């Protein structure tokens, strides 16, 4: 299986790497090779997702897979322009005060293996 490339570089910044059917106007993230609506692979074009969205829901995880340090926070954020809901960890110093509906921002970070990961933070005005 080819590894999905979730992040790409655009004008020196990172964005989530999706694609869009220009006929059906649907954005896919992760990318799809075939549009699920027109069932064609010819109408898909590269599409970088916006990095701002609304927190749909979240949780603080206390028990997890052995390789994870707990507690940590995760959530789903709705990117309203793309129409895509994205899952990622949330980094916040006071996760108990998060609220559904909060404006969130996607932050990109390169790990020691050179892989670019992403997480959410609260967007501070």
């Amino acid at each position: 299986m080819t590894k999905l490339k979730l992040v790409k570089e655009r004008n020196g910044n990172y964005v989530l790497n999706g694609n869009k059917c220009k006929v059906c106007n649907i954005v896919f993230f992760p990318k799809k090779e075939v549009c699920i609506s027109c069932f064609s692979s010819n109408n898909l074009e590269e599409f970088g997702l916006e990095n701002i969205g609304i927190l749909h829901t979240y949780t603080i995880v206390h028990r997890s897979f052995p390789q994870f340090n707990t507690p940590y926070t995760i959530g789903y954020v709705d990117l309203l322009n793309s129409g895509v809901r994205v899952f990622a960890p949330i980094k916040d110093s006071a996760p108990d005060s998060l609220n559904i509906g909060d404006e969130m921002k996607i932050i990109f970070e390169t790990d020691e293996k050179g892989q670019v990961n992403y997480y959410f933070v609260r967007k501070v005005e």
Partner: protein
Amino acid sequence: MRDVYLLGVGMTKFGKYPEIPIEHLGRNAVFEAIKDANINPVEIESAYCGHAFQGSTAGQRVLVELGLTGFPITNLENACASGSTAFREAFYAVASGRNDISLAIGIENLSNKFKGALGPDETDLEAKMGLTMPALYAMRAKRYMYEFGLKKEHLASISVKNHKNALENDRAMFGAKITINEVLKSKMIADPLHKYDCNPVSDGASAALLVSKKVAKQVGGRPIKVLASALTSGKYEPGFINMTFEDITNRCALSAYKTAGVGPEDIDFAEVHDCFTIAEILRVEGIGFCNPGEMISWIEEGKTEINGYKPINPSGGLIGKGHPLGATGVAQMFEIARQLRNEAGDRQINNPRIGLAHCRGGAVAGTEGAACAVHILMKE
């Protein structure tokens, strides 16, 4: 399509059996189902075995223990709905006219398969970023709280009910008299779900014999008619999936009601897939017993208790009985049969006529779930 009857059921007590091979658990459940149906085992014409992690041709390995061989045996995997999927295939083997007697088996032994906690599947992007199954349901619970004003105490009272029902069920792993406070004081798993909001990992097996009208009449006994068998998968739909109303459950239930010619108002009780307390809420609303958000008042009014308006999970459900993945769907049929025959002892519902079983399994990113099955059964 021919009428199909559930004639016999069997199941092991659910629990942790690291020392007992799956072939023996399966054998015990099948043996009980054959005795319960009072048929000659050599007349079984086909078998369908549902499991998630028991390896290649597990159904054959179970049935050879009883010398039940030489007919078609098919193994099915549909995550936690594997058992229901097997039941459905046995149902269709009889409904289609191909067989007069077909056997459905559900089996799972997790404790001799996995040591320690399961890691995320390498192909599951969300799990690799920390999304556990309890965390997914915790997020659905948080969203439900936001939309409808659900409180942790409502969730806890489902756990109290299901543990209490399980106490009267000799096949249940986790019967207990616990209080709302004890649920809320149990270890936090993923906010707002505590340990007692989650189903315990378990092992076990279950079996059901499905027969034609001809066989049901010959054998006598107390056959139960299977009015409908519905199965569906989660839809991939672009955009924002509603996390507090289960389209997969709703579509599946509506399809079953249509086939059965009955509606939710005709169903006396249901066994639903309560892998977590919030899941029981989503499923009862999904099968159309009440409107979205209405479960809050139903819980407060005790409507889902054994003596309530619509008893839910009289067996104890997954939370009280245990959840050996593949065994769960067929074990639901064990409870439906016990209740419809008025054999459920201290957890007996007052003379029920129609029961519904809802089971779902698997997570596929971008959809609401992998598989969902709804069966409706009626005593004649």
